[in-house]
């Protein structure tokens, strides 16, 4: 019973991280119709930066967010302005896949070149401590990671629903031409949307660095599940991404009891194929979602 309970709690914690990252992917797709394969490469890059600052200066990973979040935001805005906006509108979505794939390769190669392919792990003073929740033993770092992800997701949600900028961004997602007519500079909004997406990768990467062993090619393990989540949730829908992330994170954690770590990952792909057969546009996506 306690094992089951523990798996449920762990699954929800993992789902929180998935939800934050999938929300980032949804932002890129929503504002620009861009499928950002490099999202998880930036995730691992952020984790490496957190690890680097920690080993070099002893900086707590949570404090390194002060550096990585603004940095990633600016990189995102620059990437949208300098690279993505150069692609032809007619083939934007397809070519963005290849371009961001190329960026992912560049990042992976650089990580391996600078810090070698060996595995890295942050040693934190509070890294070994556990806490008991409802009879399940949960590592403190996992809770902190979840708290960070959940707080960022809430902040992102408030930003999108309560501010003028959020309104402009949602308008751009729903109807770019109409938003333009209302005086919204959709290009600028797209740039900020891209920056926000990368900022979620920075936060997610820092959360990941707290209790995971990282290595350059780790991003391939993340991109598959994340892509599956956004298709299942419906491309472009943030609530869809968040719900699919929680459900699939929980399923993965529960399947681990019976099947072990490796086979549990298949639940993402199984869900993806089943979704395509039953509802190709995803569970919260509009009809348009299967076109892009």
């Amino acid at each position, binding site marked *: 019973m306690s094992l089951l309970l523990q798996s449920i709690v762990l699954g929800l914690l993992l789902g929180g991280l998935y939800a934050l990252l999938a929300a980032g992917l949804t932002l890129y797709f929503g504002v620009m119709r861009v499928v950002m394969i490099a999202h998880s490469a930036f995730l691992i890059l952020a984790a490496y930066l957190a690890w680097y600052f920690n080993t070099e200066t002893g900086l707590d990973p949570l404090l390194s967010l002060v550096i990585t979040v603004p940095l990633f935001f600016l990189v995102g805005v620059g990437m949208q302005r300098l690279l993505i906006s150069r692609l032809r509108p007619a083939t934007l979505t397809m070519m963005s896949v290849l*371009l961001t794939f190329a960026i992912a390769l560049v990042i992976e190669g650089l990580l391996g070149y600078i810090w070698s392919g060996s595995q890295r792990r942050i040693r934190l003073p509070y890294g070994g401590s556990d806490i008991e929740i409802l009879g399940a033993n949960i590592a403190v770092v996992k809770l902190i990671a979840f708290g960070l992800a959940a707080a960022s997701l809430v902040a992102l949600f408030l930003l999108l629903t309560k501010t003028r900028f959020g309104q402009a961004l949602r308008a751009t997602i729903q109807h770019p031409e109409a938003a333009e007519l209302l005086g919204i500079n959709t290009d600028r909004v797209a740039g900020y949307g891209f920056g926000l997406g990368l900022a979620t990768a920075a936060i997610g990467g820092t959360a990941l660095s707290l209790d995971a062993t990282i290595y350059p090619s780790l991003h391939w393990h993340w991109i598959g599940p994340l892509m599956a989540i956004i*298709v299942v949730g419906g491309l472009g829908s943030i609530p869809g991404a968040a719900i699919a992330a929680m459900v699939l994170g929980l399923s993965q954690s529960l399947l681990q009891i019976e099947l072990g770590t490796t086979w549990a990952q298949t639940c993402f792909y199984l869900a993806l194929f089943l979704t395509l057969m039953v509802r190709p546009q995803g569970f919260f996506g509009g009809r348009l979602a299967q076109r892009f």
Partner: protein
Amino acid sequence: MPSASDTVTPATAATQRRSGGAAIVLKLAGVVVLAAAVLSFPSIAANPFILSVGVVIMSYAVLATGWNFMGGFTGYMSLGHAAYAGLGGYATGLLILEVDMNPWVALALGGLITAAIAVPIGIASLRVRGASFVIVSIAFVLILLLVFQSWASFTGGSNGLRVPRPWGPEVLRPEQHERFFYLFTALLAVALLVWWLIDRSRFGIGLKAIREDEDKAQALGVPTFGYKLVAFVLSAFVTALGGGLYALWFGYLDPVFQFSILGGAYMVLMSLLGGVRSLFGPLLGAVIVGYAVEFFKAEYGDSQFHLTATGLLLAVVVLFMPDGILPAAAGLVKRFRPQSSSIREVTAAELAEQRRAAQGGDQSAGGTHRRVTEGARS
């Protein structure tokens, strides 16, 4: 309404026919020279290593051409085509090891098995377009990686799979390379021929209509789903044969390399770089990328820096020549070639006729008129 085709005089038609005939002769000569160059490569190659690089490049060319059956005709870009090469390789290897089958029969059967697996995958993934299709293709290769790594009792798992060589030990390595070079070349020739035939067929026209505008193609009565599925399965079959032949040549399969997104990305990069709409585009791309990849690996093999180099190459292709080298080069040639419509080909009577039509206020006729006079001026 006069259009360009209406104003062709018998004289211009004859010129066009003559230049068309010349173009065919030129193309045939090009193909013969290309074939001669490829076939004489093993005797020119300085040492077995260079010969083996040639074999790798030819295997890439087969895979890229296989990819182009789907990507080029329909515009559905699969980033996970390495899955079919990997399945073809493993099917061939496992049939030889487990069933003790003749290697060449195993190769053919491996291709057919992979094609059969591609049918349900195609039915599921062709329900979505664009980005979702790419995501599904990536997911498929990742799930195969998972299965082939974890199901160690059947596939050898992370230890890999040793595939016995098709010829006995008396066939030495250089001779082995030479034979496989010709085998890959033969497979490539067949694949190119089939691609060429489809390109000129009604089926091919339907596929290209899907690429340009799938909804309109469907409205015009193209059975889009069936066409896509056939192209998809054929593409998987050719790719699987390429993977199977690679397994027989290399003799060793490792899931990490067989089912990697990088492998699929190479196919896309090669096809895009050479040009997905042309017959020889993927072949040209394979020569360039294959050489570049081998060079990067030899130069930066210890670090992961070859990934960065490949990534930069892909980014440059996507940003600056998404149509590929061949169309870019063709555009360049056209600029320097003498214009086919000279001033003499538009007679005064025709000009007067066009002017009359233009004065009629018809916008499209005016457009024709302007274009003709501009052509005459240049």
